[in-house]
């Protein structure tokens, strides 16, 4: 690991004033569980690491009007166990519970989980000059792409690694971003960027910005949500495929739906086709199955990941049926 300066920020102002305008100047550390690995592997070698854990007031969950506000530094374990989240944002609680291992959940934070870098093995190999690291090629195209994107890929084909982001996308979520110029709220679905817009990053954050909080509108009691994650082993694994579904139900009839696919695309992927297959329908097994099929209907799998279409189709169906 390259030597670096560590800044233990006391306030948000402190933090943002320590940041630079280039990624190699300074990076933000939240839980640090991914950052440390990246630095050890020389994927990132910043001059300075700005620690947000030392900033007061960024940790914890509270209600503000109709919103559940989660501080950026709230531990993933706390997101998983928090009663309000369990009750009203069930999919988020389940997604947080599914992250990695207890150790990582106790270190890792919600904002860090959303902003973690992709697990693509070509990206993670320093010796491979892939597009995400400034190269000209995505090595997954002619390489081993078992875990890569079936949606939104090109020119880079990573999948977004976060579980909690998939669940947050199934709700009405807003992020608060702070920089030295001020504070702004960004709708969650405008936060992530596709490689066609910027292959080097996964979201709109600039090197000089940090997330301070995540605000989720608490849905009423008619909205139910769930999260399913398929991983190759039962602990300490990223999703091969995941899905978060939230539905407003009147009796058995779906009035509103959000279906978000994880590990399907370089961003958490809303499937409007699946949502359209549900809204207005009485939820039966065949409707759920149709939603599953719709969720992959226009996907573009690569050479090794066609199985993911079967998998998403299956888990979307299972998730929908779990809610009725």
């Amino acid at each position: 690991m390259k030597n670096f300066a560590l800044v233990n920020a006391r306030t948000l102002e402190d933090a943002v004033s320590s940041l630079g305008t280039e990624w190699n100047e300074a990076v933000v550390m939240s839980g640090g569980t991914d950052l440390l690995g990246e630095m050890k592997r020389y994927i990132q070698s910043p001059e300075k690491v700005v620690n947000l854990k030392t900033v007061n007031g960024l940790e914890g969950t509270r209600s503000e009007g109709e919103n559940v506000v989660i501080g950026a530094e709230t531990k993933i374990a706390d997101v998983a166990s928090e009663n309000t989240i369990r009750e009203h944002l069930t999919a988020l609680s389940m997604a947080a519970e599914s992250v990695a291992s207890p150790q990582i959940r106790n270190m890792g934070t919600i904002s860090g989980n959303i902003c973690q870098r992709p697990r693509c093995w070509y990206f993670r190999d320093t010796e491979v000059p892939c597009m995400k690291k400034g190269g000209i090629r995505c090595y997954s195209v002619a390489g081993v792409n078992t875990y890569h994107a079936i949606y939104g890929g090109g020119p880079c084909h990573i999948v977004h690694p976060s579980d909690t982001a998939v669940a947050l996308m199934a709700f009405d979520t807003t992020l608060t971003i702070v920089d030295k110029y001020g504070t702004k709220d960004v709708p969650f679905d405008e936060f992530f960027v596709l490689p066609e817009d910027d292959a080097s990053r996964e979201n709109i954050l600039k090197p000089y910005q940090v997330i301070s909080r995540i605000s989720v509108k608490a849905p009423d009691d008619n909205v139910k949500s769930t999260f399913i994650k398929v991983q190759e082993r039962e602990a300490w694994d990223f999703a091969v495929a995941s899905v978060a579904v939230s539905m407003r139900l009147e009796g058995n009839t779906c009035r509103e739906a959000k279906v978000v696919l994880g590990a399907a695309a370089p961003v958490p992927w809303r499937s409007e086709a699946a949502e359209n297959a549900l809204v207005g329908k009485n939820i039966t097994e065949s409707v759920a199955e149709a939603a599953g099929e719709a969720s992959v209907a226009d996907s573009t799998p690569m050479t090794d990941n066609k199985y993911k279409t079967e998998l998403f189709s299956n888990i979307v169906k299972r998730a929908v049926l779990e809610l009725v």
Partner: protein
Amino acid sequence: MSTNNRFPRRIKTVVEAEGDYRVIEIELPEHEAPPISQQAKLNVVGHEFPRREAAEKVTGTAKYSGDYRPAGMLYGKLVRSTKPSALIREVDLSEAERMPGVKAVLSLNRDRVNYVGDVIGAVAAETEEQAEDAVRSVKVVYEEERFVVNMDRAMRDNAPKVLGQENLGRPVEFSRGDVQAGFSQADVTVEGEYKTQIEIHNPIEPSTSMVTWGEDEILLYDATQTIDLTHGGVIRALNALFPDEDITENNVRLHMDHVGGGFGCKIGPCGLETIAARLSKTTNSPVLIMISREENSLDQGNRPDSLQKLKIGAKRSGELTAIELEGYSSVGAASRGSDNLAPAGREMYKCPNVQLKYQGVFLNAGRSRACRGPGHPQSFFAFESLMDDLAEELNIDPLELRLKNYAETSDGDTGRPYSSKGLMECYEKGAEAIGWSGRNKKAGDSAGEKKRGIGMSSLLWMGGGGIPGSVVEVDLFKDGSVNIRSGVQEIGTGTTTVMAQVAAEDLGISYDDVKVQSGDSSYPPGTPSYGSLATASICPSVRNAVTETLRKLYPVVAQRYNVSEDELEAVNGVIRVKDNPSRGMHYKDAIQNVSESKITGSGRRGPNPREYVGYVFGAHFCEVEVDIITGRTKVLKFVAAHDSGRIVNPMTCRNQVHGAVVQGISYTLMEQRIMDNRTGRMANPNYLDYKILPINEAPEIEVIFSSNIDPVLNSLGIKGIGEPPRIGVAGAVANAIYNASGVRVRDLPITPEKMLNGLKARKEGSS
């Protein structure tokens, strides 16, 4: 003292390890401890004792070779190739030499590299981080060449030649009878093409060597499975490197207290020893090299993959008439033979006509090495999968088919007799324990989204019964305490625990009174920890050592009872008159009559009987649940029934089986080395992407040991356990998956991807 022939008698004998035969010359034991009979009532042997080092290990106080960090010690790191095949034009060490904390940088003067991870040079620095930074500062100018990193491509005509010769190694062939005639006699022929993946050895302790090149002694703390082999290899290497130094065998000492597993990747020198020694000599400081998990993935060996084209012919009755195999396994960038892909076809069942051929394939990738049961898990996965296909074709219960072809003697009923074979009991008890009769009569024939099924596999291991020649020394102290000593290594299998048990049994004392000294090249030659042979090799030596040592007290007892020494025997520590056992005394009493402070003796292991084949047998059964929505398989219950001869310590023995079963499930369902064809690099040299089964997915494991005690192999009737419980796992799980889901996967590992593809094909096929 007896004045019998005092000159050691030497004989040539055959050592069999992992199916290889080697002739060695050994000194015969002067006095062999008499065999312990099946009926003997034992106080210590056969009883359960936790491993001697268990408390130390679980409390973190056990010291491994990498835990010795003397003052002034430097950290060594290796400079490794980042290219799969290249000529080396230049290695520039100058920047690295100027880095902070760096004390030595050396180049191995390689002119080419053959795989990513191939060693080019090394550095030593005051901290690990400094050493790592220095490694990155070494500038290597490569001239890249064409390469090939996967077996399918290496077998193509136009493939780059990895070692400058054909990529196919010399084939190994075995045949008996007339295989064509066998197939023409068959009513049914089944065939299949099977693939297995590359498995990386992942011992919990990575390969480590800490070397101090001192004035009087070169001291190595080394993680090895073979003290003797490693010690000898290091001395040869150092003498070749430093012909002007007077490096004699007695001034190179290898020591270790604990080894955190090996599974085959710590057999012989690991390559770190000589580099650490060179760095230590140059810097005049102790140097530790402990490799990273990534380095372990690239360059410490692996179980090779395989491609097996297998064909079996049988009569309608189920009787096998012919077996044919064409096999390949990639061995990496090393001129090494293929893993043995023949054992199941050659040996498991009665069959007169067999033709088996297999060969290695060279790749620009880290070399294969022996890996827990070399060849056998691959061979039995393919063979036992096809046996189940045959059973279905013949409409015979799979277990019934195996019983119909039960071989009473070796080489499929055509060879020498087995020393013992307790397999029938394993089949019976295993089938009962898993609830065999409750399995789906038709594959995939269970309702719901989570489908359950039961499968099985036979297994055998060419154990051989133990390696002759190992020596143990015994010290009997006057206070009744005992030391036993041998240059064996405790690699986490419980070797030193069973040694103490055997000594305690024969001395008639408590287990706690025996201390075991091991892990040092200055002790008498021990036995390697490989081939599932350590217990069967060293425990008879312990017995003979106890026998010899007690004989030194015979004069005391002979005088006391006024008999000749020839009239005496020692039973459980009591030296007594053979014809009148009431006349005798315990050695603890006898020893009070000698003037020395302790009595020391030694004994050695004798040869194995040549007229028998000493193999280990077993049967594996399991129940799985396949989630057809996610394609995931969960093993719910595993029954491992083993005929390993006498079980010296059921607790440590079960422990071995548990470890192997979990490792085997991991291999079957998730582990695989993934090589990228474009870059020639391993895609997953880490524990996130190279998936290993987490412990929460370990099933309930029931271990059954047959009542068989081998009557001829050694005086304890031990056969061996280390590797056999790996061998049937993949076959049993694959067969259970088929029974559950109707999907036959012939390509390991059986991932959700393959299951979903199979389930989809099955759905489309049936609709």
